[in-house]
């Protein structure tokens, strides 16, 4: 009984917290506004040594590999 009440409370709080995400007025970057995202300085892999070190850390600590970066030349194009 206690668990189901806690679950219900968690559901209610979660719904209240995340209902804002369904708001159609949230600011979104339009396709024609993505010039800055495509800039070279926005790439997380622009330095090969730093990239190698970061990948080593991710793998060592989290057993995670890849899955980073932005598609479509950094601007999310295509």
């Amino acid at each position, binding site marked *: 009984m206690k668990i189901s009440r806690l679950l219900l409370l968690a559901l209610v709080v979660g719904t209240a917290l995340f209902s804002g995400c369904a708001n159609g007025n949230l600011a979104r970057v339009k396709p024609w506004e993505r010039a800055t995202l495509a800039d070279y300085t926005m790439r997380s892999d622009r330095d090969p040594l730093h990239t190698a070190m970061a990948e080593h850390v991710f793998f060592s600590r989290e057993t995670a590999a890849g899955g980073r970066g932005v598609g479509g030349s950094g601007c999310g*194009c295509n």
Partner: protein
Amino acid sequence: MARADVKVGETFPAFVAAGVVNLAGGDLPATAGRVVLVDFWASWCAPCKASFPAMAKLHADYAGRGLVIAAVGIDEKPAAATAFWKKLAPPFATLHDPEQKLVKQVVVPTMPTSYLLGRDGRVRFIHEGFHGDATDREIRKEIELLLAEKNKPS
């Protein structure tokens, strides 16, 4: 699927009203009564750059039959658009939407997006993104279809 304001069947907004200019100087291409391929590009968009040789080939194959290609750049920095145009030197009309008025009216779903217009100025086909040969094949079929259509009153 991203939302787009100009849909198939609707009239495409006029270039002149949006302040679009020709990067080569001079007049905008004449589009009344013609089959038109409007392509939105940007200097920072890699798929856009990849699509230019394909559009140059379309121009070579179909301009003689009446196809007009109008590539509209939406760079906020005119110098970036000009540098891109000079570097690629496309044979078709390359325009610039300096205040992004046209692209905001059309609301492209992604970059690049191209619109094939019939002779009546209405949008007949929309292509989101550029996917190499697959996009090229589809566009060619559609251009053939539209060029075969007789002049229709708007």
